[in-house]
């Protein structure tokens, strides 16, 4: 789809300057958006994709500067003064942010967010009644049929509803281009599909240009006509979405595709890209991906690797593509044929037994039943999944088992010890339970104490397990090696580590007490795709090595499929389906499970247009 160009970006460079030090964020990229076209900017964290979006509309944070040209209707947006830009924002360029929880002003009613910008033909504010009518009409357009929502405050709405209001506000002045920065990432999987479908349908009906910023190739395939792959501030590949899915022409894109855990089968080993995304300045003057690429040769390091056009609409930055293309094809083919491994449950006796667990949170007048009678079992050496959306109670259940929450009623038995209420345990029992069950949290950025070194954190963990142990520093080094980090990391503080490395440290800390059950609460969802696979492989290796049980709490069905044998599906605090993972995900019997399975992004045409995607479920009460 190449219509007339609407927005043309040429040689866009973004850098930050803090305290006299200049750092490159984006090093010279070209983009083009045609009328009615959807382009996707795909990249991991640190790739510069969000900054690119912000540069287009002049919303760069203080200390960050953009150079180059952004041409829109004969004007260069980078040269426009702030006053002129302010006029363009909203009316010509709409923006939808990632986080529906902070995007809306909490003290303004939803209607205000939309009608605030509305003007009549002469540029005057509309009358009261008109504004209200218009707000209700706009809300209906984004699928909110309840007119009362216009009078409600953002905190009274669920995340998905808020995102809808945010989209309605972005569309209020009928912009010609919509920039959506990870619009569905902070939402539940089922809601994600609804929001993406909504954006797509609005875009099609209005003929807007849409720029999707996303880290998720699957989402990009489903939504976009063309895809720009951004890595460490450089474009590595530009191609039509279908062509990338068919055959990626850069090793990085291939790596991303292969790291994506398949939702339909279980692999013995996931493909992963070693290392982490580098800073643009560290890889200047050579192929940015060369350090992590398995096909790197001298020519990759010889000089900068600009995009080269291969065919109509296809370009790649890989200088060796002609030589390695057949090998890449083979790798892709092998990956697609990699056999499904049957999930064999090696369960023997039950290690953790949870029966009829209830947890009620009371906040002021409101009472929320997070858990409404849940019973689960985790066998010795077994890997069990707990799947559900936010609000399903899956995290609460995990926290109850490790004693971070005390259940309202019900029993938890851990290795024969009754441990529903940790405060009632004897010191010896508590120590025993603590040693049996450990937890790894979702966010590796806050689960390590920022002022302590990695070494001291691990040392402490070792000493808890064995008070007065000797050779602690040797044990710390062993732990670091176990999770695939060099022992020198002991001297570092968490800030010096990437997200994936921090998560490895968090896992090492949990391993220090040699637990028999490791509870993993969304352990990879805060990580980049290329790093996700590394961590999932690590989990598989560790299990093989130590024979631990896992309780894997996640919303991501493709992840759960790779790592567990049995799965419980949680919905609103109750188990709605349970059984072997292949059966539950392959032939879901409960309606909710089916919906979860359907919400995995697919690129086929009906994923975004199917009735249930557009309509969603009836919005619930809150």
């Amino acid at each position, binding site marked *: 789809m190449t219509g007339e160009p609407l927005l043309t970006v040429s040689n866009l460079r973004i850098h*930050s*300057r*803090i*305290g006299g030090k200049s750092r490159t*964020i984006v090093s010279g990229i070209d983009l083009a958006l045609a009328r009615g076209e959807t382009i996707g900017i795909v990249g*991991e*964290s*640190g790739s510069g*994709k*969000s*900054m690119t979006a912000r540069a287009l509309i002049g919303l760069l944070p*203080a*200390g*960050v500067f953009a150079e180059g040209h952004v041409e829109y209707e004969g004007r260069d947006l980078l040269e426009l003064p702030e006053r002129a830009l302010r006029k363009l924002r909203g009316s010509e360029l709409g923006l939808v942010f*990632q*986080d529906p*929880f902070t995007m809306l002003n909490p003290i303004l009613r939803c209607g205000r967010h939309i009608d605030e910008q509305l003007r009549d033909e002469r540029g005057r504010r509309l009358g009261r009644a008109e504004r209200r009518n218009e707000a209700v009409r706009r809300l209906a357009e984004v699928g909110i049929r309840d007119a009362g929502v216009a009078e409600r405050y953002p905190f009274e709405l669920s995340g998905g509803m808020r995102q809808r209001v945010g989209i309605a506000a972005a569309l209020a002045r009928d912009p010609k281009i919509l920039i959506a920065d*990870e619009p569905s*990432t*902070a939402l*539940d999987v089922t809601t994600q599909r609804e929001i993406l479908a909504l954006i797509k349908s609005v875009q099609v009906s209005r003929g807007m240009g849409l720029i999707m910023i996303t*880290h998720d190739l699957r989402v990009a395939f489903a939504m976009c006509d063309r895809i720009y792959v951004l890595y460490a501030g450089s474009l590595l590949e530009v191609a039509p979405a279908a062509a990338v899915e068919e055959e990626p022409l850069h090793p990085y894109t291939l790596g991303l595709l292969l790291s994506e855990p398949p939702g339909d089968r279980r692999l013995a080993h996931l493909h992963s890209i070693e290392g982490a995304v580098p800073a643009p300045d560290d890889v200047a003057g050579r192929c940015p991906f060369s350090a992590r690429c398995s096909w790197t040769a001298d020519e990759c390091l010889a000089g900068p690797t600009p995009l080269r056009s291969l065919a109509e609409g296809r370009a790649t930055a890989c200088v060796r593509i002609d030589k390695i293309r057949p090998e890449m094809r083979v790798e892709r083919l092998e990956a697609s044929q990699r056999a499904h491994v049957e999930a064999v449950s090696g369960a023997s006796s039950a290690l953790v037994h949870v029966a009829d667990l209830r947890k009620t949170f009371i906040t002021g007048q409101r009472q*929320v039943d997070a858990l409404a009678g849940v019973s689960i079992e985790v066998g010795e050496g077994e890997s069990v999944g707990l799947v559900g959306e*936010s*609000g399903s109670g*899956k*995290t*609460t259940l995990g926290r109850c088992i*490790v004693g*971070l929450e005390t259940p309202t009623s019900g029993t938890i038995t851990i290795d024969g010890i009754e441990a529903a209420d940790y405060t009632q345990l004897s010191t010896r029992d*508590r*120590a025993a339970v603590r*040693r049996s069950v*450990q*937890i790894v*949290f*979702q*966010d590796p*950025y*806050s*689960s*390590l*104490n*920022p*002022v*302590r070194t990695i070494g001291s954190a691990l040392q*402490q*963990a070792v000493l*808890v397990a064995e008070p007065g142990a000797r050779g602690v520093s040797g044990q710390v080094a062993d732990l670091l090696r176990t999770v695939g980090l060099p022992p020198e990391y002991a001297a570092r*503080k*968490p*800030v010096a580590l990437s*997200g994936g490395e921090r998560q490895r440290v968090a896992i090492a*800390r*949990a391993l220090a*007490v040699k637990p028999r059950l490791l509870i993993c609460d969304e352990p990879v*969802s*805060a*990580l*980049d795709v290329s790093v996700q696979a590394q961590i999932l492989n690590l989990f598989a290796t560790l299990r093989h090595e130590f024979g631990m049980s896992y309780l894997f709490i996640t919303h991501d069905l493709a992840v759960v499929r790779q790592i567990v044998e049995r799965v419980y599906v949680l919905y609103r605090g109750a188990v709605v389906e349970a059984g072997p993972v292949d059966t539950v995900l392959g032939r879901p019997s409960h309606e909710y499970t089916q919906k979860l399975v359907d919400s995995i992004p697919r690129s086929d045409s009906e994923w975004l247009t199917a009735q249930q995607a557009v309509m969603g479920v009836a919005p619930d009460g809150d």
Partner: protein
Amino acid sequence: MSVDINPVRPELSLGVTRSRRRFPVLIILCLIFTALVVFCAIFGSLVAPHDPNEQDLLNTLQQPSWDHLFGTDTLGRDIFSRVIVGARTAVAGPLVIALGAMLIGNTLGVFAGYRGGRADFVIMRFCDLMFALPALLVAIVVVGVLGGGYWLAVTLLMILTIPYDARLIRGSVLEQRPRPYVEAVRVLGLKPRQIMVGQVWPNVLPVVVANTFLNFAFSLVTLSGLSYLGLGAGPGTADWGRMISDNRNLLFQNPVAALGPAFVLVATATTVNLLGDWLYERLSDRGRAR
């Protein structure tokens, strides 16, 4: 419950661009001045050009000269020497107040914030009770009734400062407590004392330090105020507040006699505040992105 955090983080966390110099010029000046004051507090009587308490009734009410930089007072004592020696009461009392309130206030605050529940309730209600007392007025009344005295005033001010420290630290601890790093060590089985002292407290340290400096400056001014009213340092003591009070009648004959000590007092308080602010920023940068 679980709000699933998005997997993608903002590319860069960019704070406000600010000077990255290790020691800004202003801070160097502050450090020099503070060092001078502390030196005078310890060795004041050795370096003072005159004996601060020596009365020279033939040379009363002298104008500033090379021999008497700030002139002499009604009893002929050298005001400059008294300012130098006065650094001792200016530093000792506030130091005791700031450190004492920090120790006790932090213990109470960390305990209340981390433990919560009944301990928190009792400690905080005690603090509320103390807040209801008008601190300065209580100090004036109690010291007045008990007949004055520097160390009585110091003790009283310390007790009155504790609840403020406790409440502030409790707030910071409450903010740290639900963070995953705290929960992770709880699950590991660390003892509450280990978590409070070794994990949480280092993370609220910037607040602690800044607040201790603020307390120092505040109690310096308050103590001097009490001395000015005749309730702090005893008669005849070389104390800045007392000197302002004693020499205030000389304002038109020899302004330096009252303004000299006043200037040193204000400069010391300001310097300490600036240092506290600077330390706060330095410490909060620990553990944050480079």
